[in-house]
């Protein structure tokens, strides 16, 4: 889970979930605390979905 997808691609990550921003990949200080936690939960769930998905090549999960 990282903010700059091209970097993840370059270094060879196979399952990539785009994150929010470099200093807060799984957070957003502009949001109220509850919304931020929901955002984080959503992103981590996306990560878990990626782990449950078979991939043949590098895949970005941004749906």
């Amino acid at each position, binding site marked *: *889970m*990282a*903010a700059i997808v091209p*970097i*993840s691609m*370059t*270094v*060879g990550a*196979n*399952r990539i979930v785009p*994150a929010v921003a*470099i*200093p*807060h*990949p*799984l*957070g957003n*200080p502009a949001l109220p605390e509850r919304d*931020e*936690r929901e955002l*984080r*939960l959503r*992103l*981590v*769930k996306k*990560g*878990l979905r990626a*782990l*449950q*998905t*078979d*991939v*043949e*090549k*590098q*895949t970005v999960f941004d749906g």
Partner: protein
Amino acid sequence: MARGRYRVVHYLNQFFAQIGGEEKAGIPPQVKEGAVGPGIPLQQALGDEGEIVATVICGDNYFGENIETAAEAVVELVAPHRPDVFVAGPAFNAGRYGIACGAACTAVRKRLGVPVVTAMYEENPGLELYRKEVFVIPAPRSVQGMKETIPKLAGFVRKLGLGQPIGLPQADGYLPRGIRVNAFVERTGAQRAVDMLLAKLKGEAFQTEYAMPTFERIPPSPAIKELSAATIALVTTGGIVPRGNPDRIEAASASKFAAYSIAGTDDLTADAYQTCHGGYDPVYANEDPDRVLPLDAARALERDGIIGHLHEEYYVTVGNATSVANAQKFGKAIAERLVAAGVDGVILTST
């Protein structure tokens, strides 16, 4: 600088000095007058301008087993000959010889202030160890390359002997040392970059100013079949560590990774955790470390049975100017531990 002929001292191992093979690899440093072995064609290439006044010889095993004392002994043997240049090899792909050449050159340069040069094959271990210290002329892998290497080596010895300035690697035929030199250029970086891009789009050749390291491609692991039975671990390169950074993970160029227990912890808080990563604005991570290592979310998913188990440790390093070699090393080591601990999948957060 010497008037008349510049003086050269040459370094060879026991084999090229025609003393013997492996059985003589233990001979200690010694010196002979004039040119020996490959020093003879080297002398021919130097012509009347330079003179190989002495050849220092040492067995590859002797050197390898006593690098510092052998290098010192070589320096002592070189000094009385007052050379203007010290040249070692060519070592081709002979590892012990390449290391001896590099070490001997480095010692002579540092202790006697004499310009030095050696030659070896690109994969010679001596290159990685000494390329920053001494000039290295590229040589082929095998001794068959002697004929093509001697003139190149002689050319460089000549430059050093005549006190001529040494330019960039490509111009003067030596291997890049990884030393940056400032230069003025007519066209701005933006213009040069656009030129390169246009050439690339047209399928024309272009010269990169910065070569990208190549990264390995790892085959994807199979998907997790039963997430509710799986053990998931959290890993981060974002430097989230217990407050005080007890293991002193470096803010840049990390030399290590660490594992910390999160057993019984549901949430990373500012009083207990911090980031030690020096490459991003730490404010947000320090306020709430979950923004980088999503412990609160992972714990909630464990509580709700979405994942079977959250691994009781998380792994951390700092991904700021981490060498590719170290990153690979850490990754492998962490993976081995996670596999041994029965972890099925990892959420890895990078900053």
